[in-house]
């Protein structure tokens, strides 16, 4: 049979019979000595400031700890000041707009940070807890407030705040840097091509801190000979950004010496292979030439979606032949296809941010949707480029996960 449990009484007449008799004895003596603690002493020497106010906040009673913390004499406070009068101006506003309403509505408030103005004008950071006492009819009769010295904690909080502000600043800096870099992937302004309309839509993905790899370019090689480039470097971030810049300027330089787009792609392939980065890309180069008052388009694709030709009363159709990814293999296959452009024709090039856009339900925007949209929305280069961008952003409920680039060229007429 287990021993009968005694109630844990510590009175002199019922000592525990067994166990740690000595330590229990010591505790008992200790508590016995504390019995000399009258309630006044417990109150005055509590390890926190303690205030009792009327429901209006007038100080009715205050303990010695509070007086010691703040340097006031009891006579300065009791019946003379309200708790709110002891706060800094900012603290008074906070008290009146948050603390007091909270107390009145909720009956208590906890861990409110305030600054008490001490007798000598110095400030004491405190944390305050309050409870409202109700009278028999449920009306507030008094407010009891415990006040804790929070000097060190407040200093620590200030450090946290400073760190947070610093973090926010560097984030803003990183975003600005990424945006600036990303803007260098496209021409600062569209060149005007005499006899053609050129328009583009470009939208980098995400919140802006991350740099994607979509780029496009349009530049004049010589009179009546223009080059249009669109591409997508795999991956994101700084390394992808470096390769994107490299790709854009390599094609620019190569196009001057190489009259065929496939030649420019071959040069780019070689440069990327020797660059030492693992990054590869997909690129389409389109050469637009005016000869005998007729425009021709010669295209070479390196792993990139084929350009689409939109011709009046014909369904939109891709032209050119697919080629190798650029920067991946030593002997890539790139070919050239030339077509003649007629008045009214529109050529559209785009990155996979268009066709691989996914709706919130997980559906791809895909080639068919793009072709169908183009068939239903014939228009100027501007209308087509802006329209596709808007359509694809909306398809993703306004939150694209990948960069989107679209460039449209139209022959007026």
């Amino acid at each position, binding site marked *: 049979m287990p021993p009968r449990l005694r109630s844990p009484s510590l009175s002199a007449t019922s000592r525990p019979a067994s166990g740690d008799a000595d330590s229990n004895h010591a505790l008992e003596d200790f508590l016995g000595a504390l019995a000399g603690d009258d309630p006044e002493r417990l109150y005055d020497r509590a390890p926190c400031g303690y205030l009792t106010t009327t429901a209006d906040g007038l100080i009715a009673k205050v303990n010695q700890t509070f007086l010691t913390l703040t340097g006031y004499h009891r006579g300065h406070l009791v019946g003379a000041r309200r708790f709110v009068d002891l706060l800094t*101006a900012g603290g008074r506003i906070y008290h009146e707009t948050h603390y007091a309403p909270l107390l009145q509505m909720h009956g208590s408030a906890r861990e409110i940070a305030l600054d008490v103005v001490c007798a000598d004008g110095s400030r004491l950071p405190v944390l305050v807890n309050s409870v409202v006492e109700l009278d028999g009819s449920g009306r507030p009769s008094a407010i009891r407030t415990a006040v804790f010295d929070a000097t060190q904690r407040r200093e620590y909080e200030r450090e946290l705040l400073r760190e947070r502000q610093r973090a926010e600043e560097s984030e803003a800096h990183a975003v600005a840097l990424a945006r600036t870099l990303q803007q260098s992937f496209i021409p600062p302004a569209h060149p005007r091509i005499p006899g053609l309309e050129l328009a583009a839509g470009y939208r980098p993905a995400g919140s802006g801190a991350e740099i994607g790899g979509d780029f496009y370019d349009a530049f004049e090689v010589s009179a009546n000979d223009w080059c249009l480039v669109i591409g997508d470097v795999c991956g994101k971030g700084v390394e992808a950004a470096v390769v994107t810049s490299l790709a854009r300027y390599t094609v620019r330089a190569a196009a001057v010496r190489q009259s065929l787009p496939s030649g420019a792609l071959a040069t780019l392939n070689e440069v990327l292979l020797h660059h030492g980065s693992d990054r590869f890309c997909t690129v389409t180069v389109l050469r637009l030439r005016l000869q005998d008052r007729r425009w021709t388009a010669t295209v070479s694709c390196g792993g990139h979606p084929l350009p689409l030709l939109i011709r009046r009363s014909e369904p939109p159709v891709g032209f050119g032949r697919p080629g190798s990814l650029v920067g991946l293999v030593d002997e890539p296959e790139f070919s050239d296809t030339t077509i003649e452009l007629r008045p009214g024709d529109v050529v559209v090039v785009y990155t996979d941010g268009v066709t691989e856009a996914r709706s919130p339900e997980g559906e791809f925007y895909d080639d068919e949707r793009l072709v169908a949209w183009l068939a239903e929305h014939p228009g100027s280069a501007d209308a087509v480029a802006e329209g596709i961008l808007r359509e694809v952003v909306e398809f993703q409920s306004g939150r694209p996960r990948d960069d989107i680039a679209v460039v449209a060229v139209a022959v007026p007429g």
Partner: protein
Amino acid sequence: MDVKARFNVADLGQADAQPMVFAHGFGCDQHMWRHVAPRFEDRFRVVLYDHVGAGGSDLGAYDPVRYDSLAGYADDLLLLCREMDLRDVVFVGHSVSGMIGVLAAVAEPERFAKLVLVAPSPRYIDDGTYVGGFSKADIAELLDSLESNYLGWSSAMAPVIMGNGERPELGDELTESFCRTDPRIARQFARVTFMSDNRADLAKVSQPTLVLQCRQDVIAPVAVGQYVADAIAGSRLVLLDATGHCPNLSAPDATAAAIAEFVSD
């Protein structure tokens, strides 16, 4: 636009009666009126709402540009009145909403029948002989104290502080949201409120106006209430026997009685 969701509108009382619109001040939300507004539901259509950024409003509608001055909040009040087709409105605004109501009533005077300004202040910062009660440094200190309090009142802390129902009659929905605000929004609202100066707008008010002033109010002292009443022609000043800035909470009987007398004139 769904103004009811945007402003967390409570549309109570008599649907066909004259509308009374109650707007809360800086700090908490429409629940500040819970001891006062119900007393008008038998004779009025009582409309309560939260400013965007406060209480149960649509935080997604918060636009730092629109709400960079009190005019944005006044536009909201007019938007609310238009969308709900409220005419002949008795507007009751606490604290900064007093001035929001003044701006709205000046912009579209025909929409408002009467104004009740509870503890209003047209300018909180002293200016020459004008005593608003605060210095610029005081307001900087307020923004600082907001910062330190919201650090403690992070989203993780707030439910602990608010949710412990020692007054269960208030209900979960109230304790969840009352006095809780996004820190960035609160900081901007504080700056907009306490840096505002609407003294010049008071003279343009053409509606019968009641100014309710507390005996001891550290935010809007008696002299400020007197200033408002002097500046609005034909207005009436009633000094409430109440301390603090929120007589709608601390002295709801006196507050409601003064409003009732004014609106039944």
